[in-house]
């Protein structure tokens, strides 16, 4: 059986993007939420 390199190369690029897109934005959102919580706590203290 021969492998269809063209299709699977396109598929692999898509798959790599998918994996990166699950890991990186989750990390970035976590950091944003952490920063927001910190800011809110700071504001509460100031009040």
């Amino acid at each position, binding site marked *: 059986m021969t492998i*269809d390199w063209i*299709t699977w190369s396109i*598929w692999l*690029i*898509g798959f790599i993007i*998918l994996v990166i897109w699950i890991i990186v*934005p989750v990390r970035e*959102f976590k*950091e944003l939420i952490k*920063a927001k919580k910190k800011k809110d706590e700071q504001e509460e203290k100031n009040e």
Partner: protein
Amino acid sequence: MAAIDYIIVAVFMGLLFYAGTVFYRWIGNPDDYYVAGRQLTPFILAATLTATNVNLYSFVGQAGVAYEHGIAIVWQTWTGNMAMVFSGLFVIPILRRLKIRTIPEFLETRYKPAVRYLVGFLWVFRLSFWLGVVLYTAVVAAQTLTGLDSFTAWVLIFSVITILYTMLGGMWSVALTDSLQFIFMLAGALIVLPLAMSAVGWFPGLVERLPETHLQLVHQHGTYNWQFVLAIWILGLEWGCVDQGLLQRAFGAQSTKTVAKGLVLAGIINTPFALLWNLPGLAATSLFPNLPNADAAVPMVLAHYLPHAVLGLVFCGLLAAQMSTISSNLNAVATMFTNDLYTRIFNKNASDKDVIKVARTITILIGVFMMGFTYVVPKLGGAVDAYLTVIGIMDMPLFIVAIVYGLLWKRTTWQAAIFGYLAGALAGAFAKFGMGYDFNTATFFSAGTSLIVTPLVTWMTRPDFHDRIDLIWRMRQAQDDEITSKQAYHIIPISFGGRLFLSTLFIGLLIFLTGIFLGSIGHELASLLSVIGMIVYFASGLLRLKFE
């Protein structure tokens, strides 16, 4: 679809609603609502840009064109991606530094409030029209795919949850749900591609079964020929520089550098992604030949080759593609209305709370208008053609007066901007409706007229140099706060590597254009050269950022 598919879709919708409403409490001021407090990071920005730009038109409409006319339609996405890289490197950093929220706001800074009100007013309608068409195509595709014929039910399914979370969480909700939707979209496309390709005997089988011209990227003749590629590249440039949906996401970025990174990333990522929905369209050409409606090509592949549960997951991907586009544009219309009209004309002393309240109300109103408009679309006939005409007529003149003359020629006056814009729009409308030309030609008419009328009126009117013009010109340079925070972005790089790769970017563009023009004489290297040019262009864009 079976019960399991519907359960998956229901869980997905619930998840989106929950995720979207989480940010309700994050909205403290209008900037939070419009541009996510300008906190978006490069990957979140790229995800939200990609999710907004990919909708059912890509999965259904574009794949349908691939089914009927071949792979050349992929240039619609690819040239759009090239435009994103261009605007990310050269144009949007300037706009981001001005801390504006909309293009009409830029027009006020560059020209006068009158230009802002005129364009703001027209664009609220233009974006609402787009939303109606987007929703209509989604409803029709969902009907084909599921066999559920209730038009109203699908209108409600697509609209209600999207309107609610956009209304509550603004751009924060849009950004989070876009990121989630991007994952579903990509996962769905990754499932469909191997199934469709295996059904036709993989790529060699596809080549054997298709007419030769179907796999040719640049044609000499036909509807999607070299002229189409050229026209869509020009329209792409316009889209990349003035589209409110795209700009608003870009303005939400943490810094100017993030804008450039996010746009270049989104452009490059979207390029292989486009093949994931166009190849199944090509496969459908041999699997289901002679379909009466080409738009049914990919839904047919899905319905025939996907097992239950997987079909539900892929359907979520399609829903995601559409909902992300709707939510982003709803937010864009609300922003334009409140930012350019409400706080400037109707209530100049509005508090932050008032503005957010009005933005939320407008989101609901435009959502209702969008739902109503879907019932009108079938009666209008070719809705997609009508939409392309609207872009050609209304968007091209805006690009000419705002970006071409607004950023490149200080002497341009506000009167010239108004006359240039209106003359271009009217010329485009006359070419389309008076002379019966297609949208490509109408685009050339509107752009050409604006290009000529704007400088003519400028020379006839008194120069109106003011401090704001100098401010815009200063925004071409990296600002002090960027340098202090080590986030400086130079439009013309200061490093040797940066300048080298900026040069190769233009060489890539030249190779791409050479390929397209060679297509006009049917040269066999046309397709290869244009693709090589595009790859050089993308690689150079990425490396230019690396060597900042």
